[in-house]
């Protein structure tokens, strides 16, 4: 096998697939990147057996030649070393040639590397996902959905299913829910091409990686699901992820349907006030702010830490309806939720100082954030 390629294009492809490669894998060959070269272009594959990413670099794009193939073939190269070599080559033209016994020569300018490759036949097959596409979604919308939910997944392995985001397709709607049991994020999206019903739990880590490699564009991403895998297909990228096993808790009944106090407030102003109040938190785990309604037009955000000092701030509210309220919660959870809503006015509905409260945008209810308060003693 022998070909020439533009260094920056190869590097882009490599950096995408490397996101799936881990140095701590039980299967040694997965520390490598697989490269399949044909006259049409190059496929690069990286995997840690949970996530598999394949990118395709076409031989020609918009009438411009990106690579020139003299002879096709396949090879597996150590991902870390190969990536570093390509990154540091002296010129933008790279020639890669593989002889017998997987001896790999990388030439650029006056530099020449010899790398020992691995047998591509030992590399695992791509996950078997033959199903029809479930739906298609613009890449930028998909990225938004991920950003608005994935932060709320659990980081603890005590309930593994909570480390993923629950995707449920039903009634022409995609509902994504993430919760670490202390807060919950839910995003509903109407999609046209939705027909079947489906439910899956996608690992939070997979969605974070997917978010990194997708470009902010309206290009469609096809979503395909089996009982064990989900596949995201964009123009030149295939992203496979294992799904989490186990039943996701039914969260719909956890979301309160009525409330006793409702506060409408500018989301950005509240975010900044909480951010300021949290300056006095001693450490992340004790990052608690107190939120108090003050008559019908004002809320007070305060924080008190015995060793540092205290802070109080009044904030004009658009409207306060219902009972008086005093509640304490994690500043971090509140800021995460407000960032996800990213709206002008936010409606917050409380049912009591020891009960979950919900936040949504005053303009639409596609996003819902739920936070459990903190009990102080």
């Amino acid at each position, binding site marked *: 096998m022998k070909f020439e390629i533009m260094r920056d294009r190869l590097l882009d492809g490599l950096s995408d697939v490397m996101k799936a490669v881990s140095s701590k894998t039980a299967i040694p060959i997965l520390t490598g990147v697989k490269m399949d070269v044909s006259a049409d272009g190059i496929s690069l594959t990286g995997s840690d057996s949970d996530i598999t990413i394949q990118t395709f670099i076409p031989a020609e794009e918009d009438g411009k030649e990106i690579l020139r193939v003299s002879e096709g073939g396949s090879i597996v190269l150590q991902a870390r070393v190969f990536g570093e070599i390509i990154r540091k080559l002296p010129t933008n033209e790279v020639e890669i040639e593989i002889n017998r016994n997987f001896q790999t020569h990388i030439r650029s300018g006056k530099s020449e590397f010899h790398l020992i490759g691995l047998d591509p036949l030992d590399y695992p097959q791509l996950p078997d996902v033959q199903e029809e596409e479930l739906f298609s979604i613009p890449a930028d919308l998909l990225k938004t959905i991920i950003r608005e939910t994935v932060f709320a997944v659990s980081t603890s392995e*005590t309930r593994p299913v909570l480390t993923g985001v629950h995707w449920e397709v039903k009634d022409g709607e995609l509902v994504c829910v993430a*919760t670490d*049991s*202390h807060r*919950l994020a839910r995003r509903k999206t109407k999609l046209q091409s939705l027909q079947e019903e489906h439910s899956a739990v996608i690992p939070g880590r997979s969605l974070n990686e997917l978010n990194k490699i997708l470009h902010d564009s309206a290009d469609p991403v096809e979503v395909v699901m089996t009982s064990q895998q989900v596949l995201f297909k964009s123009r030149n990228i295939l992203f496979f992820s294992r799904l989490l096993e186990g039943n996701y808790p039914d*969260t719909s009944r*956890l979301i309160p349907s009525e409330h006793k106090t409702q506060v409408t407030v500018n989301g950005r102003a509240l975010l900044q006030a909480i951010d300021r109040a949290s300056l006095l938190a001693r450490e992340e*785990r*004790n990052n*608690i702010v107190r939120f108090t309604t003050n008559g019908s037009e004002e809320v007070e955000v305060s924080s008190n830490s*015995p060793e540092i000092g205290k802070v109080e701030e009044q904030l004009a509210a658009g409207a306060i309806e219902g009972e008086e309220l*005093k509640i*304490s919660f*994690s500043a971090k959870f509140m800021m995460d939720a407000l960032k996800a809503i990213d709206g002008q006015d936010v409606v917050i509905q409380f049912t*009591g*100082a*020891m*009960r*979950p409260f919900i936040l949504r945008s005053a303009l639409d209810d596609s996003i819902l954030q739920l936070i*459990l*308060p*903190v*009990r*102080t*003693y």
Partner: protein
Amino acid sequence: MAGRVIFHIDMNSFYASVEQSHDPSLKGKALAIAGNPKERRGIIVTCSYEARAHGIYTTMPVFEAKRKLPALVILPPNFDRYRAASKAMFDLLRTYTDLVEPVSIDEGYMDVTALSKERDAIGIAEEIQLRIRNELDLPCSIGIAPNKFLAKTASDMKKPMGITVLRKRDIRERLWPLEVLEMHGIGESTARKLKSLNIRTIGELAQADEGTIKSGLGKYGIRLRKRANGEDERLVDPDSVYDTKSIGASTTLPADETDDRKLHEAFRSLSAKVARRLEAKALSGPTVTIQMRTFDWQNRSRSATLRNPIYRKEEIADAAITLFDRHWDGTPLRLVGVTVSNVIEKQEAAEQLSLFDFEKHAKDEPVLRLMDKLESKYGKQVLRKGTGRRRIESVSETSFSKDFLDDHERE
């Protein structure tokens, strides 16, 4: 920081001395205090100097000690007696200065800088030693130095009933020729690490390259190197005794154990013990650590930090057993332990509620609302839920227990 005068008072074979003063017929006899000799936990906790002369030492198994010296008198520990003697000793020290810092039941530091302006420091030390001997019938050694490290090193130089002055200019002659293992703060494993850096004596440590030490032992190494040079800026802090940072309990198992049900049971009973002690001090903490000592004396510990500080025995046991199940590889264990650390006063703690447990807290809402109203009317602290300040009389159950510190009432 210049010109401090620090004493380190170290009670000589404290438990044995207390027993001898309690029963004068034991004076001059080889005496040892040991845990329950029937089970394997029978190791010597302390022994009198007469016993030491016959080769008996702390941590020696009882059966071995008996074989070596059949005349050895072995007594079970009587912690109430030791606590009372410890309290009397520290009360006596406090008649000289408020700057007394108890370190454990039988040793502490005093900062006598102010007092030594009027009186000779050695004279004060002689008087303290004599008074402890006459009034409490107990022997002690006193180290006199410009800082804590040197004072502690000095008190160790002459036992029993020694008074040793260690000046910074003496260290070259008296400290540097010693092996690093002789230095306070250096144990077997640190000594091994130092040896791999070709450092064998305290002098070599003092003169070693700072970068080498730092890369080999980290910040701790830097601190040790400073100490080896006779530098130690730690203040004598009378309040440090109140800063409990962790509460733990451990037990030596009757046999090297491989049965996970029995080990779970041990963790549960240790968790209950830790929970009782947390309760007694109204503390809670978010970090749970388990200790495991294998049959061949390898020590392992694993810890987890939870979102909320905990104090209930069930919660502690859950966390400990989860850690154990995740990390135990089936090696027979001779000792297990549980510690809750980063503890804070329960009143300062806050609990992040969860979707799955908020309902039990929601039940308290009416009471909390009422308390809020009363507080805003009459001011804070007017009332508390339950008996927040309750302090259960705690029972010291191990020789390493720090509960004796409860005896030091804060003014």
